[in-house]
């Protein structure tokens, strides 16, 4: 008589435990995920070897050509050469032949909000200036 050893079956792993873990992870990521679509506007970029700007002295604005100044009032309205302009009118004015491609300086009021500044930046960017700077007035005692 020949005795054959029965092949040992591999240990049965319950799939239910794995499904439990997966479900918990799934619910965790569903709850903690935020669906935010965010963009960015660069505020400062400089080469790795460039020195940090001296914030105390304030940056002296070199003026090659003739820069044009856009003022942002406390009420969020923008002014070009003394005229109040909305965003579209500002873009159109900066596209005029005498201002096309000029460097634009933005002088915002400290009382205006970030949204107003971004609106002006967008309007100026659409006009395609050669450069844009934001000026800041420091009050010294």
């Amino acid at each position: 008589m020949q005795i054959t050893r029965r092949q040992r079956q591999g240990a049965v792993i319950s799939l239910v435990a794995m499904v439990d873990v997966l479900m918990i992870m799934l619910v965790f990521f569903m709850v903690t995920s935020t669906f935010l679509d965010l963009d960015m506007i660069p505020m400062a970029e400089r080469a790795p070897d460039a020195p940090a700007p001296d914030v105390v002295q304030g940056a002296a604005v070199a003026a090659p050509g003739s820069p044009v100044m856009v003022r942002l009032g406390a009420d969020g309205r923008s002014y070009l050469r003394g005229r109040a302009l909305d965003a579209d009118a500002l873009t159109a004015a900066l596209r005029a032949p005498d201002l096309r491609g000029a460097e634009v300086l933005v002088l915002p009021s400290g009382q205006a909000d970030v949204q107003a500044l971004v609106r002006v930046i967008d309007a100026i960017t659409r006009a395609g200036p050669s450069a844009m700077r934001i000026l800041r007035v420091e009050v010294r005692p």
Partner: protein
Amino acid sequence: MRLVRRPRRAAPETIVALIDVVFFLLVFFLLIGRMDATAPFEVLPPLSDGGTDLPGGGATVAVAADGTLALDGAAMPEAAVLDALRTRLRDAPDLRVRVNAHGAAPLHRFLPLAAEIEALGAREVVLVVTPGVP
């Protein structure tokens, strides 16, 4: 003779299909979720149609509408924010600093802060915006 009908057993549903679906969803949320520290106050970034895609990573400075500051989700005064950023920039000079300012935050709070961060030596300071027409 008594005939006994055997109780019908429910058809075994394959659990493998369920695992497939759950695993797919898990990977989906893993990929699209971004582990960002949210600010301890409400921040609604300004609307802009001129922004570019915001890459992940970096330090996030949140500015509330009333000027309160937070760094990577922890509220702290301005001096502490700048100190922490100075330390981090010393270790990683390429650190991108994202300023996540509320659209209603006043510029007399936001602009000096951005200038101070730049003066710390940050090579890239960006303003976080929400895509859309303002």
